[in-house]
């Protein structure tokens, strides 16, 4: 293991120059995260691995014409999302059973149990978690990309093929909806907590 951490930008520029080690290092670094992300946006888990390989193979093959991305991670996530969408769209078996949109963020969010020490906080977090999971998939995906992957608005816009302002609105709506239910409907909250504790 190298003691010095080599930055993504450095690895990328080595890769463009034809360094296989840089390519492999980036692959090793991002493969696990991409598998997780891929599986959260399609139920066809068997195609995810193949799509990741395609994304990386293209990077290598077209490295001389690629521009340097601001964030390698955002570039890879975005590349994978598009690749999966295209694969599902083209394949007649998949497109038949697909809903309105082929790529749908379906992973459930979970509470960060180990960080919660207080029971009152726990019950609130559990309730919020239910609410977040009930958000429409696109809102949930935007929240995930923004606050879990920590992508910028521009990067999310590119990924979800929306314009900048729409992403801002989407995220704002998600938080607003969350808060309005959370803050406004205490009786419901009590009911829900009662149900959860059965």
């Amino acid at each position, binding site marked *: 293991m*190298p003691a010095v951490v080599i930055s993504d930008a450095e690895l990328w520029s*080595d890769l463009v120059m*034809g*360094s*296989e*080690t*840089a390519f*492999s*290092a980036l*692959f*090793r670094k991002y*493969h*696990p*995260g991409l*598998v*997780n992300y891929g*599986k*959260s946006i399609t139920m066809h*888990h*068997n195609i995810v*691995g*193949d799509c*990741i*390989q*395609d994304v*990386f*193979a293209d990077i*290598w*093959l077209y490295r001389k014409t690629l521009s340097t991305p601001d964030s390698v991670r955002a570039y890879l996530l975005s590349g994978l999302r598009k690749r999966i969408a295209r694969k599902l769209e083209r394949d007649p078996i998949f497109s038949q059973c697909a809903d309105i949109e082929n790529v749908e963020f379906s*992973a*459930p*969010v*979970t*509470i*960060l149990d180990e*960080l*919660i020490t207080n029971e009152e*906080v726990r019950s*609130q*977090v*559990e309730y*919020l*978690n239910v*609410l*977040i999971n009930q958000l429409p998939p696109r809102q949930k995906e935007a*929240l*995930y990309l*923004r*606050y*879990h992957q*920590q992508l910028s608005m521009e990067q999310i816009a590119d990924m979800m093929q929306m314009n900048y302002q729409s992403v801002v609105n989407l*995220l*704002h709506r998600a*938080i607003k909806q*969350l*808060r309005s239910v959370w803050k406004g409907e205490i009786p419901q909250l009590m009911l829900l907590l009662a149900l959860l504790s059965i």
Partner: protein
Amino acid sequence: MQRNLYQTIEEYLQDPSFRRWALQGIDDDGWEQWMKQGSGTTNLAREAQLILLAMGWQESQIPEAETENALQATWQKIGSSGSGIRSIAPKRFTWLYAAAAMLLLGIGLGWHFMKQPSMPETAVEVLSKNNLTVRLNQTKTPMLIMLEDGSSVILQPGSQLEFPEVFDRNERKVSLTGEGFFEISKNPSRPFLVYANEVVTRVVGTSFRIKAYSNQPAVEVIVRTGQVKVFAKQPATSGIPQEIALHPNESIRFVRHDATFEKPVIAAPHVTGPIEQLQFDFEDTPVSKILETIELAYGLKINYPKEILKDCYLSTALSDLPLQQKLKIICESTGGETRYEIRAEQITIFSNGCN
């Protein structure tokens, strides 16, 4: 400080220092203290904290071997695309090239075996489709591999399995180096063949173990259930039967240096793994107990709603079935809306109770 000027939850959600405190408990900027003020701003921050805690993502652990295999498969993809002329290797981490070279050697050997004249022609076809996956278990624990046809293989550490993404219409072929326990989904019109060193094992649907380490003098096939046929890849010297049929609990050794099979014997328990020794026929057994048995047999973790399933009992016979079919039957017999999901080697059972 800036935090006093924040007016929206979003500003907290994306503040790196706030995130470190809320998500990792690292309080560089005295958030804990600051939150105690109880002003409007800190209330917003409190909400942001709860939202972050409620919005975790389960990132499942991807085994290193999976990443390595995927990387190697990617290089193969690049190589086969024609335009991917690989440049001369540069400096850092040279061990990688050794690994890549080993893989190429492995593929070369596989190719060589497949081209043996005694082999049916279709074997070459499988390879020419260029959709072979190579999984090498570099971990210290057995690895579960699910095949496209619903069959499953438990691959021992240091062992390698090569299989196509999609099997041929008429035949299912894999090749093994090292040790694996196979549970093959039944399909008489599509026999399943395992190529392991000099031995080919042919079944239509059954379970068995093969030990074919390249540094061992013999190849062993140990049958758990069903009918298994073994034969030598190269038709050997005179007097030796071409094909030997094995029955449940029998094992056979193929001595490599003189290319002969020994007589089949009853398998000794020590040559097998936990999966062969466990009973899968259940009589009025709690579902949780059945799932524990599966966890033990396959070396897997199964997530399931313990509370909801605590009063559910099943009677079922699962011995002869691959993992996915076992799970399917458990879910179906539990009833209600019980179903299972396999995601990145994690099995989760969802249920709202039993009938």
